[in-house]
């Protein structure tokens, strides 16, 4: 245990995802040793992200205005929606240049063991978008792991009776992985080879 400000910083860092006590300590002492202007910039970036970034009112991707860049782009198709778990998955799919439609970010995956059910995700909001009748294809790009598959199964169960074509990314993606770790070529291929459910 350290005293005062340094321990406060270690505690705060330790609450971040993927940062254990040792890493928290390493980062805290790095901050202490670093240049004042670098740390000012980091602090400003942290503050700005909470002040300026919000969630797009249509797709729940991160946005700096009411709507995200993709939803504001008139060249993007309105008849296809790709469903992902997190905003970082939008970035991964955009890198493939395979998809010209819009997205819907669920905010996670169904995980009963963690108490996350359909009502805890933005599924009701997705259903509202689909009920407009404009959308003819829904692509399920949740992670290729158990929770992602279960979420895709649930969405297919809900959406197929609406007469919308529902497809799932091809199984070329390794099971158990995170979508964000797939390289562009693998992910692009999975997109092209998506199968209708």
């Amino acid at each position, binding site marked *: 245990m350290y005293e005062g400000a340094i321990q406060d910083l270690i505690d705060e860092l330790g609450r971040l995802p993927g940062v254990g006590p040792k890493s928290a300590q390493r980062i805290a002492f790095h901050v202490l040793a670093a240049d004042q202007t670098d740390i000012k910039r980091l602090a400003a970036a942290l503050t700005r992200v909470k002040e300026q970034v919000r969630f797009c009112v249509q797709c729940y991707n991160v946005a700096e205005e009411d709507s995200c860049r993709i939803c504001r782009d008139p060249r993007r198709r309105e008849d296809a929606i790709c469903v992902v778990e997190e905003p970082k998955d939008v970035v991964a799919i955009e890198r493939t240049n395979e998809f010209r439609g819009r997205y819907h970010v669920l905010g996670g995956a169904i995980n009963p063991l*963690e108490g996350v059910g359909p009502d805890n995700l933005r599924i009701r909001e997705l259903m509202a978008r689909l009920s407009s009748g404009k959308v003819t294809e829904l692509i399920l790009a949740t992670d290729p792991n158990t929770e992602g598959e*279960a979420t895709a199964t*649930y969405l297919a169960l809900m959406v197929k009776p609406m007469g919308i074509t529902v497809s799932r990314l091809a199984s070329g993606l390794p099971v158990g992985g995170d979508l964000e*770790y797939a390289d562009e070529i693998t992910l692009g291929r999975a997109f092209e080879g998506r199968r209708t459910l």
Partner: protein
Amino acid sequence: MPGMRRPLYRDDALVLRVQKLGEADRIVTLLTRQHGRVRAVAKGVRRTTSRFGARLEPFSHIDVQCSEGTSLDSVTQVEARDMLGRRFLTDYPRYTAASAIVELAERLTPVEREPAMRLYQLTLGALRALADAERPGTLVLDAYLLRAMSQAGWAPALRDCAVCGEPGPHRAFSVPSGGVTCLNCRPPGAAHPDPATLDLMSALLVGDWAAAQDTEAAVQRECAGFVAAHLQWHLERQLRSLPLVDRREPA
């Protein structure tokens, strides 16, 4: 100590839970045949190049080798015996039933490394039954909950009075009293289930599937309600997954 090899052990196991750790690792909770419940780190499994990431998915039946660690063990090898989860992932109601099964298995093994072979067998049997899809998923779940509770010493009284032992059959059912009660022991607010519901609970407890499957949907629903109430009464904290079980029959 540098250079000292950590002891290895190998066992059959069911993957109960998988949690992310750091950038690419996972912590898996296993229910093993010989070693009870074990938590272990699986390194690099979220990278798409991982050799055994796919085998360490929830509900998998695996043959696993771990090395003992000071705080957490590490998974060093995994062979798939039966990827049970993959057989019901396309059936959402069964997936939710399986989630409740593994959550209860974890809850009933509060101490790591305490052998729980009967619970292991029961859990494996239930997950297999869900994967085989020959029986209704919700009945498989309720049978598991009842049997796991009775293994833990919390079997509900279904025939003789839970309080005084007066021979049954009795009509009143009270969760706090521990099951059916005679008229003298019946507490205020006791329920009066359909006798067929009590018969269904008995059938599930002993594994009489012919009788269990021959019941009406309303009786199965009432039975599920009593099983859940009885379970939640005995557990300190509610099972998170139980309210999320989807009891729709698949189309």
